[in-house]
């Protein structure tokens, strides 16, 4: 292993983060109606006048790119160009947003009411808002929030409206259009709708990408989409999807804009609205279809307390700086720019790497509540743990997490016992505290069939795991190193590295591990474990220290469920593995783990897909 990169890890604990302000505070003390009707004059990109949706549509339909594709398709299919153009116009009609201030005001009013009922606080880093405001004026902006809940984009637009920033246009799944009225209202508040899959449809792709690019090039409004593509049911970040990122980068590659600011945004929920639904979905209950009546039924959640939301606007990342030395833009010189072509391999690699980088930036700025630590510890002790011990362990874990750079929302004046107690109080549905012991609530309230019991138990483990998952990114690299050290059964650095590399490869569908970053991740892991004196890294060897045993064993058992899940999960597909009759690891039942494990096996060519 040659670590000849110039990468020098920075101490993650020294990361500086901004302070938060609660935006609901003002809402609780002044009129929502006046707020919704106030004068709204956002700053805009280079003083450009926002474009009417109709003008935008015409611009897209008359673009060189679309004209080219239409002409080509007409030649291929023999269909007349007018018919195809008509079709393109139809696609655009279905897709395009119709942002209207009136609807925005309606949402501003009703969301104010809803948020106040649901959440204690909606906290935003105002420094981030300031930076965003600056960026919007200088370059086209792409907003990239994390995706944990349907609330995400409502929250985003709400915040931008509150701070008098241009409202974003948001890429949303077509499923929302299934909701009567609501879908159209979302459209009028800036959402545009794209089909979930349109692989081979050239015309659709052309209309869609040209639509996004036209908005970006002219800088009419920030463009918002979710890198992860869909809501993460597990609260772990998902492997980023590259389609839209490719599209928003292209205008820069082709010199049509000077730069594009990519703004990673981390939205963390103390309790996700869809918490219970997600666990059921992971166990195979299909996702309820988006419908207006479903939404109305879901209004009972308004009576529950979902704690606070933290929204952290990260530093805008300049695409130009990222691409410096990576992308040779003159590769686009020899082809008219409106003719679509596949991005080169170096471009694809760059987009992929950037996507990972942005998701990691989202992860880094996710605010973690003390409960996340408690959940991690409880899951490691399925038989329950003494309160006293739990407090001690939580306090220890807090120190470790902070030194690894976790963004903990745990002020110094709150003692560990207080933090643990209030965490347990908010999540009574998941934890049982009896006789000075805390335990996951595994026993079904009313006994049913064995299958139902199993289902309930698994559901509560998965719910709890979704909290633990929020902190995994902090421990991921050191834990992989810990596991590798266990696996290698020797202290030679090369052996450990190859085990590390193997594990990393196995888990790269599960966690955010950028392809090609093995050396850097290994260095980072070594650095972090050396810093907390858990290991001793020499030139040729990596040795665990006396003190490090506790840390290493915590780390390995933290990721044990995944290791188990990968052994067990795809068992039905693998005859070689003995399927354990006695199932102890509920997390292996998660469809997410199974899906990822299968994908990993496919990728590593352990199994092969056969069409049946």
């Amino acid at each position: 292993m040659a670590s000849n990169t110039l990468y020098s890890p920075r101490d993650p604990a020294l990361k500086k983060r901004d302070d938060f302000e609660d935006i609901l505070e003002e809402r609780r003390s002044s009129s929502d109606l006046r707020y919704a009707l106030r004068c709204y004059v956002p700053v805009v990109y280079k003083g450009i006048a926002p474009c009417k949706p109709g003008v935008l549509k015409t611009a897209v339909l008359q673009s060189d790119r679309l004209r080219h594709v239409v002409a080509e398709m007409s030649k291929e299919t023999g269909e007349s160009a007018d018919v195809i153009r008509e079709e393109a116009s139809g696609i655009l009609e279905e897709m395009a947003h119709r942002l209207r201030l009136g609807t925005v005001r309606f949402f501003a009013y009703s969301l104010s009411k809803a948020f106040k009922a649901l959440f204690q606080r909606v906290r935003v880093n105002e420094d981030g808002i300031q930076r965003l405001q600056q960026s919007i004026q200088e370059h086209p902006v792409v907003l990239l929030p994390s995706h944990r809940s349907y609330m995400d984009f409502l929250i985003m637009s709400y915040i931008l409206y509150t701070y008098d920033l241009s409202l974003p246009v948001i890429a949303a799944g077509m499923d929302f259009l299934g909701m009567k009225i609501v879908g159209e209202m979302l459209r009028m508040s800036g959402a545009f709708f794209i089909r979930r899959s349109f692989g081979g449809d050239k015309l659709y792709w052309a209309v869609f990408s040209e639509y996004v690019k036209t908005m970006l090039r002219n800088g009419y409004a920030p463009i918002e989409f979710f890198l992860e593509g869909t809501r993460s049911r597990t609260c772990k970040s998902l492997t980023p999807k590259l389609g839209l990122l490719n599209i928003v980068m292209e205008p820069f590659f082709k010199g049509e804009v000077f730069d594009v600011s990519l703004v990673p945004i981390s939205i963390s929920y103390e309790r996700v609205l869809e918490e219970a639904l997600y666990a059921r979905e992971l166990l195979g209950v299909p996702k309820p279809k988006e419908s207006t009546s479903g939404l109305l039924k879901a209004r009972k959640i308004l009576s529950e307390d979902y704690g606070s939301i933290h929204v952290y606007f990260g530093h805008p990342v300049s695409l130009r700086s990222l691409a410096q030395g990576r992308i040779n833009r003159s590769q686009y010189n020899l082809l008219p720019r409106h003719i679509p072509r596949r991005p080169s391999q170096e471009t694809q690699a760059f987009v992929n790497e950037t996507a990972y980088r942005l998701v990691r930036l989202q992860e880094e700025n996710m605010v973690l509540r003390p409960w996340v630590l408690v959940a991690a510890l409880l899951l490691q002790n399925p038989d329950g743990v003494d309160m006293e011990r739990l407090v001690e362990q939580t306090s220890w874990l807090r120190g470790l997490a902070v030194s690894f750079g976790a963004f903990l929302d745990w002020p110094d004046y709150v003692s560990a016992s207080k933090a643990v107690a209030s965490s347990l109080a908010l999540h009574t549905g998941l934890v049982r505290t009896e006789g000075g012991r805390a335990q996951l609530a595994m026993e079904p309230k009313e006994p049913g069939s064995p299958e139902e019991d199993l289902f309930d138990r698994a559901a509560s483990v998965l719910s709890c795991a979704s909290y633990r998952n929020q902190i995994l990114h902090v421990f991921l690299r050191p834990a992989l190193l810990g596991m590798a050290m266990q696996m290698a059964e020797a202290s030679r650095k090369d052996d450990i590295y190859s085990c590390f590399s193997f594990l990393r490869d196995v888990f790269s569908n599960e966690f955010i591990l950028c392809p090609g970053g093995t050396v850097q991740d290994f260095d980072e892991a070594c650095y972090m474990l050396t810093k907390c004196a858990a290991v001793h890294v020499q030139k040729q060897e990596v040795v665990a220290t006396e003190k490090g045993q506790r840390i290493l064993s915590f780390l390995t058992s933290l990721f044990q469920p995944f290791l188990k899940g990968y052994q067990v999960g795809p068992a039905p597909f693998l005859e070689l593995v003995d399927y354990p009759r006695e199932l102890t690891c509920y997390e292996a039942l998660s469809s997410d783990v199974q899906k990822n494990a299968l994908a990993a096996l496919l990728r590593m060519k352990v199994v092969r897909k056969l069409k049946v």
Partner: protein
Amino acid sequence: MKFVCYSHVCVVWVLWFPPKLQSHACVPLMYAEAMVLTAIRGELVVIPVEWSWLTLSRVLFSRQEVMKWNGWGYSDSRFLFNKKGQAEFTGRRYRLSGMVLPSLKDWFESTFGASLQHKSPATATLNASAVPFPSLNEAFLQDLKSTGIPFSHEAEDRVFRAHGHCLHEIFALREGKFGRVPDLVVWPNCHEDVVKTVDLACRHNVCLIPYGGGTSVSSALECPPDETRCIVSLDTSQMSRILWIDEKNLTAHVEAGIVGQDLERLLNESGYCTGHEPDSMEFSSLGGWVATRASGMKKNVYGNIEDLVVHIKMVCPRGVVEKSCQGPRVSIGPDIHHFIMGSEGTLGVVTEVTIKIRPMPEYQKYGSVVFPNFEQGVACLREVAKQRCAPASIRLMDNAQFQFGHALKPQVSSIFTSFLDGLKKFYITKFKGFDPHHLCVATLLFEGDRERVLQHEKQVYDIAAKFGGLAAGEDNGQRGYMLTFVIAYLRDLGMDYYVIGESFETSVPWDRVLDLCRNVKERIVRECRERGVQFPPLATCRVTQTYDAGACVYFYFAFNYRGLADPVNIYGRVEHAAREEILANGGSLSHHHGVGKLRKHWMPESISDVGIGMLKSVKEYVDPDNIFGSRNLL
């Protein structure tokens, strides 16, 4: 004092001063005057008027007597801020000469954050003792003496030919710093002299650098610092005769050392012109144009240099290269002219050129059009190019450059004119609603017979109107063109007050013009900020030429360098970044300035490795010992 007689078309007396005397030698005051007074050692010598400046230059061997040694152009012409703090242009050579420019100071101070209190004057005189001692090849020198070709190794002569007009070159001169300079200057008088000189250079392994007008902006004249051989600057200025004019075929055979303004004036006397007018035409030479693939402002009518030359004679170490006929177009393999044009002094010396001539145009008319913004202006130029109805010259200045041009308006003589100006301004900004911070101006020059010009003018104005353009008068047009002639003088003024700047150019397909202009300007601003420049830079551009498939874009870039330790280095890095931006946006490495040493870093990516190999193999055959060792291009 030596008198030599030449038998020639026009017979002239040539004076040969020993080099020592040159510094006190004659200073022609005004070549266009009825009489030219020349002082030699305190004696007054009256020279008849037929002795134009051209003939005097042949007398003098060098133009350095009338030109600045550390700045642009004629010694008598310069901008300065007078005691009242008003800008003034001295001398009597230009339309602007002797005029007061009341708004220049405000523009200068507000654009650059400069102040008249903060001066950064140049070293006044050339300190000959600071110039490196010449390392001479004695054997070569001996043989050279026997040929009778004049030469000099005086410090002034060598320093004058050691540089072009890149910012770093002029900046160093102003600070009195000299790097590697030629060891010897020779003045061959004709093709045969050049053959002899090149022959001797080959025999004694001497490095030759041809020197024409010295207006290079690509570091092409810079001596390679690690060149250990004796470097000889081959000054072509004595080869400046028109050898013949062929009125049947409309060609003229001219020695390559002639400078643009002389060529035009002499041809004009016979009722002809070449129409080749690069902005440097006052000083740049025919041979230089050929060697760098020059472009003239009126190329729409007359063509660029490659369209103008019919025949070229070049002396190379391997021998003399030329074609055997003057057929207007030939299909005899790759055109050898295209090895010569753009060779930038790396293959040989161009000695004689047959160039197309045209009857002088009967009528000339300037014009200008105001557009609400740059985008509309570019769209209009594109349409004009599409309809192939471009006037002799059409240029589009961006807003910053329009304001720059405005700052050069001379003091108006009457209240009436100033009232008219105010009225025009009111009409455009208030009545027509043009934003003064976005509007831009196209300047036009029409040429031909009167009726055609007027017709042409109408056609162009009609197109302009479709893009929101308003005709804005001849005066604005003419002032626009004047800017290009005085801009280099303005740079010297800036350098007196901590402002450094330069121009650079590119050519780019039509669809990328706007993107390129915007991105390059923004890149300049951003790079300056990141490199610690304390004041916002001036980054402005204009579209100067239109072609069927694209346009030539010309940038000015300048900034106030107060507070910077190494301004020239920072300047260079920003310019480098700007060039990278140009290439990334589909622009070319150069439209007409050439590559020299300044831009050769990008040659492989511009023409591919195989392309480089092709050029190298030509160089290897033509000049195996690298006698023409300027190391430009490759």
